[in-house]
């Protein structure tokens, strides 16, 4: 009796009207779990309707998440700390429900700088780079300009840590600046910057264009460091915890799919279609294959083992923010790290029977002293 389902006496059969979950991302290879979850229908399978939007800058993505124009986002870990602390004038509470990846950024140098360094095999040592910067200073040459993607980014803090390990003061011996990832290769070619630390595929793209050389990956600085996170607006989680859990489950399922070597070619095709239509497929595939300029990376971009958000790992970034004077005094560790929660991940993982990932190696010492 098909008419029965239409009868007002059986309202329980009516599906609730789902509000669309709006997720923003910045086009980078490590947005893959979100793009894959949508392309493979993983969001649909957990009963979610998702609108993914590519954002033109981290600031725009952050503002939209803070102001309620987005419900969730592919976010830089230190941005969640910056939001909790109200840095740059924007304060909002977000919930880090899952990690989206580990590693996956490169430090890429201009050809002329790579030539000046002489022959080196990646990863380039901090000591060799420090020596070059000091030689240049002694010769009275201009300081180098290196771009990162955002002030409050893993890129900025990992790069600073590496520079300091080479005996350099990143605020005095070099000029650090910000360039949006899609523009880094062009600025390197124009000579506006001498190098950059940015997420893939932009290092591989610069190398493919012949405008730069990949010197190391951020996984060489802190192996398996947490990279982007899936962050929800806190009031979205409070209002609709089931959808937050469902969305997190879809992302964990996507990370699981991305771990299968057999799926990597398709993953690269999805990224090309959804985020980088103008790039060669090989340039996008390199990060998935764990390669940089044809050489295997010691700590390549990975997804599945990075999904559990770990506050003690995020704490390393918090300490670096204090080290470089980016966080005003009076912000407690607990307030700054409050966004990192494991309850949503655990609820989602239980649904998928996903085991807890193995504990990652500890972060590097807060300060590496120059030998």
């Amino acid at each position: 009796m098909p008419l029965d389902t239409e009868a007002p006496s059986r309202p329980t059969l009516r599906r609730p009207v789902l509000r669309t979950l709006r997720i923003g991302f910045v086009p980078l290879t490590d947005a893959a779990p979100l793009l894959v979850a949508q392309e493979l229908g993983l969001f649909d399978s957990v009963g979610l309707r998702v609108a993914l939007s590519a954002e033109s800058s981290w600031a725009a993505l952050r503002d939209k998440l803070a102001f309620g124009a987005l419900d969730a986002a592919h976010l830089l870990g230190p941005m969640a700390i910056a939001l909790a602390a109200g840095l740059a004038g924007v304060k909002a509470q977000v919930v880090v429900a899952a990690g989206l990846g580990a590693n996956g950024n490169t430090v890429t140098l201009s050809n002329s700088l790579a030539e000046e360094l002489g022959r080196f095999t990646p990863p380039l040592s901090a000591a060799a780079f420090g020596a070059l910067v000091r030689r240049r200073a002694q010769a009275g040459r201009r300081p180098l300009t290196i771009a990162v993607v955002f002030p409050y980014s893993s890129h900025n803090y990992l790069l600073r840590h590496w520079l300091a390990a080479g005996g350099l003061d990143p605020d005095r011996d070099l000029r650090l600046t910000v360039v949006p990832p899609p523009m880094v290769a062009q600025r390197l070619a124009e000579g506006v910057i001498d190098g950059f630390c940015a997420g893939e595929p932009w290092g591989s793209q610069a190398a493919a264009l012949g405008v730069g050389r990949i010197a190391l990956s951020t996984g060489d600085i802190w192996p398996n460091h947490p990279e982007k996170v899936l962050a929800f607006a806190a009031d979205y989680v409070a209002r609709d915890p089931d959808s937050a859990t469902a969305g997190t489950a879809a992302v964990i399922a996507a990370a699981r799919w991305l771990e299968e070597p057999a799926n990597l070619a398709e993953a690269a095709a999805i990224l090309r279609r959804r985020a980088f239509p103008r790039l060669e497929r090989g340039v996008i595939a390199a990060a998935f294959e764990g390669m940089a300029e044809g050489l295997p990376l010691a700590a390549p971009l990975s997804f599945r083992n990075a999904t559990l958000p770990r506050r003690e790992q995020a704490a390393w970034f918090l300490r670096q923010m204090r080290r470089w004077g980016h966080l005003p005094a009076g912000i407690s560790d607990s307030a700054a790290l409050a966004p990192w929660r494991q309850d949503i991940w655990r609820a989602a993982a239980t649904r998928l029977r996903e085991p807890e990932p193995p504990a990652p190696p500890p972060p590097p010492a807060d300060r590496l002293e120059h030998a």
Partner: protein
Amino acid sequence: MIHASAWMDPSRKTQETQLRVLLVDSDPDRAAAVEAGLTATGCTVVAIAAGTKELTRHVRDSGAEVIVCGLDDPSRDELESMSALHRDEPRPVVLFAEKAEPEQIEAALAAGVSAYVVEGMAPQRVRPVIEVAIRRFRAHQALREELAEARQGLEERKLVDRAKAVLMQRHRLSEPEAYRKLRRMAMDRGLKVVAVAASILGSQDA
């Protein structure tokens, strides 16, 4: 259409001074329209930065009092890096967006953004919004400085307390006696009490 009226006093008269505005917009047509709107209400658009290679230098050279920038402009991360990475004096940034829901604008203001302009807003309303943005920004900066000062005061008191404890133990003094001794040492040396406290603690550690 303006959604910011809740916090804006429309009866307030605009000042006659020229506001120096730097406009950042990578869409040339829109930039021209926004510039016309700003100029019509007595702002001086000192520069338009559109996809410029050296944005930070551009901002510094312009001497602008306020930056007007599209919410989705790709230059935004670079603009934000100026105060965070280069310790430039922070400047108010007025964001404009093609569309935004009223509750989003409310949330933006609550989160600390100085002002939020929606495209298509009547030109005569633009200048008051920018003025409010500057006022809010300055009030926010002043509050931050006050907080920093208050925190420093607290730190200084802690130093003095610890130095007093050292003197009490070293010379078997009561608390008021220790404080008098500290003050006398400061007067004798022409230093602040907190400086003497720091030197006492320094010699203690050594």
